[in-house]
């Protein structure tokens, strides 16, 4: 996919057409009935999430199924899962920008929005999981009357540093790419209020060559920073587990294994959203079969890497020879959670193998189905990492299973609603595709033909 790559955009398209394709669904067309129904449902779920939060803060974490020895439950699994999903946007944007994959222009904006929403939701879960959530700021090194400092050797402090950096960075990276497009929206909007709002957020962008040059320099430098940042964030999440002494967790493979899993689930979510957005906003000419082909390949690569990670885990548990590790391995395949574990392997390793076929990669029904299956599989993986280890601890007398409560399921379901609601608002208020990047890509493709 170098300079000789096949064009990803229609060859006879003009710059104005491209802008119109992206901007018109937001500025000219009214949201359809389906959008309102989806918005209504997700808004209700968002209110449900608020109710879950309120009940949690009133009653405490006892409303969930967490109890000794399974002291981590849905909250931590949801956190890892959402944060994983929140990785692909920055990855697509940054890594594909640095490697000059021009086709990213069609998908990077909404993938970054996805990152932002998913990472923000993810950031709530560790705070919810604290017994005293109102004291989460104790993780910050600030001058206080107790004369206390954070314990820097604690994985929780690393988490706080990594996630807060990641969320701030994602907002800025997304917004910086959005500024020129906000100017385009300002210049196309009809209502005075829309012109003003877009104009203020566009910071008075006037497309000056000097500004473009600096924008490009800054954006590329941020992309170069984003790649190690993305890798560090899920590595730190992996170390939350690996820094413990628990069987099945204390493994050096955890940081890269978590990063790969994050990319994998994130790209799957991008596929899901790309299918929905393409259909909802009529972006067939912008998000083409070639994009699904490329994304399918990345999901496939992720699946193979996940398979390798599982194999490495099993091999190390057996080869290491520690009885507790071998017992953990036996528990994976024959224990109480074995059916779920096999389901996870099918979802994450077996089903994505369909994507070896180019025809299936370009088939939207297949791409959509696989992406949903992968997302379910990755959630299963996150919860099983916790359940399999904590319910099967060193002391056999302590072993108990986790029993999810209504509030466990409600919090997970409603968090998906929050994500949907945010994404629906994004699709109606902002250009879902980076118009300036798209036209830059179109310009490049026109030049390559000339």
């Amino acid at each position: 996919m170098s300079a000789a790559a096949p064009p990803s955009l229609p060859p006879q398209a003009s710059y104005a057409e491209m802008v119109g394709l992206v901007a018109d669904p937001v500025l000219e067309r009214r949201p359809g009935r389906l959008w309102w129904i989806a918005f209504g449902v997700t808004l209700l779920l968002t209110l449900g999430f608020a109710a879950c939060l309120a009940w949690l803060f009133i009653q405490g974490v006892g409303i969930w199924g967490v109890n000794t020895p399974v002291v981590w439950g849905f909250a931590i699994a949801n956190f890892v899962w959402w944060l994983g999903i929140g990785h692909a946007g920055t990855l697509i944007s940054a890594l594909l920008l640095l490697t000059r994959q021009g086709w990213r222009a069609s998908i990077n904006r909404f993938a970054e929005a996805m990152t932002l929403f998913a990472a923000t939701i993810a950031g709530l879960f560790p705070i919810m999981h604290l017994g005293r959530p109102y004291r989460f700021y104790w993780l910050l090194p600030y001058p206080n009357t107790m004369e206390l400092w954070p314990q820097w050797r604690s994985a929780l402090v690393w988490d706080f540093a990594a996630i807060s950096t990641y969320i701030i960075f994602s907002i800025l990276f997304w917004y910086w790419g959005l500024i020129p497009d906000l100017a385009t929206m300002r210049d196309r909007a009809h209502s005075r209020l829309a012109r003003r709002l877009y104009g203020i957020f566009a910071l008075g962008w006037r497309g000056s060559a000097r500004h473009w040059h600096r924008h490009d320099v800054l954006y590329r430098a941020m992309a170069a920073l984003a790649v190690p940042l993305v890798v560090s964030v899920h590595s730190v999440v992996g170390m939350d587990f690996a820094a413990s002494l628990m069987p099945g967790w204390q493994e050096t493979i955890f940081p890269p294994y978590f990063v790969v899993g994050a990319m994998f689930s994130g790209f799957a979510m991008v596929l899901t959203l790309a299918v929905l957005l393409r259909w909802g906003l009529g972006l067939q000419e912008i998000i083409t079969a070639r994009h699904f082909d490329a994304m399918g390949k990345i999901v496939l690569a992720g699946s193979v890497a996940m398979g390798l990670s599982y194999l490495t885990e099993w091999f190390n548990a057996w080869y290491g020879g520690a009885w507790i590790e071998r017992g953990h391995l036996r528990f994976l395949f024959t224990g109480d959670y074995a059916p779920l574990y096999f389901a996870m392997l099918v979802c994450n390793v077996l089903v994505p193998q369909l994507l070896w076929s180019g025809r299936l990669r370009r088939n939207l029904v297949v791409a959509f189905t696989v992406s949903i299956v992968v997302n379910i599989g990755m959630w299963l993986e996150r919860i099983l990492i916790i359940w399999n280890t904590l319910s099967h601890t060193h002391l056999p007398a302590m072993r108990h299973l986790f029993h999810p409560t209504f509030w466990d399921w409600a919090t997970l379901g409603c968090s998906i609603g929050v994500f949907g609601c945010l994404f629906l608002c994004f699709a109606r208020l902002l250009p879902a595709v980076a118009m300036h990047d798209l036209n830059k890509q179109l310009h490049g493709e026109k030049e390559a033909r000339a």
Partner: protein
Amino acid sequence: MSGGRVLLAEFADPETLLDAARRAREAGWRGLDAHVPFAIEGLADALGLGGTRIRPAMLLGGALSGAFVYALQWYSAVLDYPVNSGGRPLHSWPVFLIPAFEAVILGATLTGILAFLVSTGLPRLHHPAFAAHGFARASQDRFFLAVADPAVDAARLAAALDGLAPLSIREVG
């Protein structure tokens, strides 16, 4: 860049704008700029805009914030609040690197954004160029060359751009 008189020549495609930019630069005019809807490779060179020091600033900002956070951890864990945790060294540098690394990224990003805002003068919601008729398309599909040289008037600009067929030449400000 100044608030003074600006001549704007409008083109329909980026290649012609690049030609026009080169001619304007060869003519030795000052105050050259362009208003375009997307980044065009080579435009900054064609206009002779010179480099920017955003990246060195980011490096400095990142290094300083990383050093600050590392020093903060060292001070708190070694001097101000030493905790013996399983006999581990007080100066646990491998883990101190994690928050320090995040601080490098955050510090570099914030410095870069600040440097961008300072060097471009944004946010600036009003500018004479916005007054030009049809300038709204500078963010969509038109490519404007801007000349802010008191020695150049519309006639001279039109003569210099002979053969490039600008769609319009306007004076604003």
